[in-house]
């Protein structure tokens, strides 16, 4: 009984100590330091996320005629979640902030828009409405919220990846919708997105390279989109853990090797 009381007392003492540490004033670590960190890291995080996205899902993110209902919801959520997952681990571990995914999404959003507006629209003159980037900010907020509530990376990887995929699709489908309207072109019924892809010349991207739904006897008839979303959610779990591995073994572990822990 006495031992239990001592343990409770020790735990309370530790809590008090941690509370004190939490609000301790540091002379050189004021909010200016935080600001410098968040702003400078934004460029690195945005670039890392954008490059990872382009590496795995470049064309799906560039062209409206690639944003289809079969491959887009599989490839893109997987590619997009890797860096947000890594940042989620780092920011939760270090500061208990459920912000890694949203922070990455916001940074990447700005990087992507700068790239599309200046490189693709202004410089190469592709219309922005043909080369707009997908957004993952709503998906990032959902993913961070799942981590905040579950406080578990295992649960976040499973539940969060599913939510991430669904929100990714629904938040981008609303901007894709106008380009899925049917029209007649060259004597065929096509979507506006198809017409954009045909009209706006992509010199070294032959049309047969376009990986979009083109039918298979194994299709679930009208259910292609739902099957893709479920499969995409499953694949995204793998993407989430790739991000976790990057964070744990490429980012955090080396720091722990050379910097003394508190």
């Amino acid at each position, binding site marked *: 009984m006495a031992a239990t009381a001592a343990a409770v007392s020790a735990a309370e003492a*530790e809590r008090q100590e*941690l509370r004190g540490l*939490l609000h301790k004033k540091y002379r050189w670590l004021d*909010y200016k330091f*935080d600001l410098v*960190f968040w702003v400078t890291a934004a460029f690195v995080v945005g670039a890392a996320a954008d490059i990872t996205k382009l590496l795995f899902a470049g064309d799906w993110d560039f062209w409206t005629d690639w944003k289809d*209902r079969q491959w887009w919801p599989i490839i893109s959520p997987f590619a997009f979640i890797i860096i947000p997952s890594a940042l989620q681990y780092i920011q939760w*571990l*270090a500061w*208990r*902030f459920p*912000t890694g995914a*949203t*922070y990455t999404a*916001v940074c990447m*959003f700005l990087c992507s828009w700068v790239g599309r507006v200046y490189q693709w629209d202004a410089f*190469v*003159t*592709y*219309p*922005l*409405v043909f080369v*707009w980037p997908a*957004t993952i*900010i*709503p998906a990032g*907020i959902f993913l*961070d*919220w799942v981590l*905040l*509530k579950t406080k*578990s990376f295992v649960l976040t990887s499973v539940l969060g990846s599913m939510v991430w995929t669904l929100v990714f699709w629904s*938040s981008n*489908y*609303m901007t894709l*919708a*106008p380009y*899925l*309207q*049917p029209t*007649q072109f*060259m*004597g*065929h019924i*096509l*979507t506006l*997105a*198809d*017409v954009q892809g045909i009209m*706006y*010349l992509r*010199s070294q991207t*032959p*049309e*047969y390279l*376009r990986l*979009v*739904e083109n*039918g298979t006897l194994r299709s679930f008839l009208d259910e292609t989109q739902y099957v893709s979303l479920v499969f995409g959610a499953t694949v995204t779990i793998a993407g989430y853990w790739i991000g976790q591995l990057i964070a744990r073994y490429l980012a955090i572990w080396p720091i722990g090797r050379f910097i003394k822990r*508190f």
Partner: protein
Amino acid sequence: MRRTIFISLVLGVSAVFTTAAAAYAHGENSQEGFLRMETVAFSNVQFTKDTIKQGEEVTITGKASLLTTWPRTLGEPDTGFLNVTAPGPVLLMKNREINGMSAPDAFFVKKGNAYDFKLTLVGRDVGRWHVHPTFSVAGSGTLIGPGQWITVQDAGGFQNNHTLINGQTVNLENYGLGQLTIFHWLGFALGMAWMLYWTVPAIGGANHRTVSKLPVTLRIPLNTDGQDIGLITPRDHRISNYLLLATFALLVVGWVYQSVSFPIKIPQQVLRFTPPELPQPAVFASAIPKDAAFDPQTSTLIMNVDVTNTGKVPMMLKGFTTSSLTFVDQTSAGTGAEHVMVISPSATIAPGETKTLNLTLRDPVWRDARMIEVNRPRIEVAGQLLFQDQAGVQNQTTIASSVNPKLI
């Protein structure tokens, strides 16, 4: 330091001015010459205009033949795509016909077949642009046809109007930009709200500092939010819930908006077809190359070819097409002929006659276009001989021969 900067600037500017002209083309000479000659032969390529206004049409016609000499190392050709290469979407593709059939997308191809193409484009961006027809083959790459400079003149702006099935006319240059911008930046605003709440202590609370929290966070288990010590507070949970609800509301509004505004939608379409084969005239010519020699010093190719007229009337050798080049018989070439060849003894072959023709193709293009190079794994020439009989009927016969280069 100043001297270094000055020298760097001079070198940089010189490099730009001396190499920009070469870089302005599309790499049509960068692929290995023997592969260009053995794969696709472009013939009779014509541009209807070289100067257009924005919105005005220019048509490119011609024939692309998938030669029987297609190298096995490139794999069997199965799917092809005829397009245009240009510096970005400076022109727009308005219509594409292959062997008389509309071909928006790629199509199935077969070795030995020829594809008459008609590409209708309209001017979009003001400027002077180098434009080529191209033939891409899945698994192999893109072959580039003869190019031409096209000048697009200012017409006071450009609109790419297109009519939907529902009768609405939209400008594809900016259609949907408004809603795209609104939804994306509303999402961004929510993301910023989430970030500002969590990272600015003045908004989220003193517990939202970053670096100074490390001594605390590293001492508690990863699977806890530290509510008992005030690391994350009930208020944090509450505000996060509100922001999540706002995000969810944005999704619902967006979903309802797209459902109401665009009720009829279809998935992206993929069109594939096999173009009808071109009518084949009766075969009256055959050709077997005997040998070929190339002199890099004078850029001269000499071929000896055994030619047989299996028809009933005399025929003539009119030309030789390889890759994007066409050489015509010098004796019958007009003043506009770009490349010519000398045929001896005579280009005319009587019915039933077999004759060895000596073809001399002396032209700097062999060197300039890097068609025959001695530092390649195969030193070869390939292409199509064009024969024509008295009635004007034409035969194209594919030949390929190794080349004996003059090395010393």
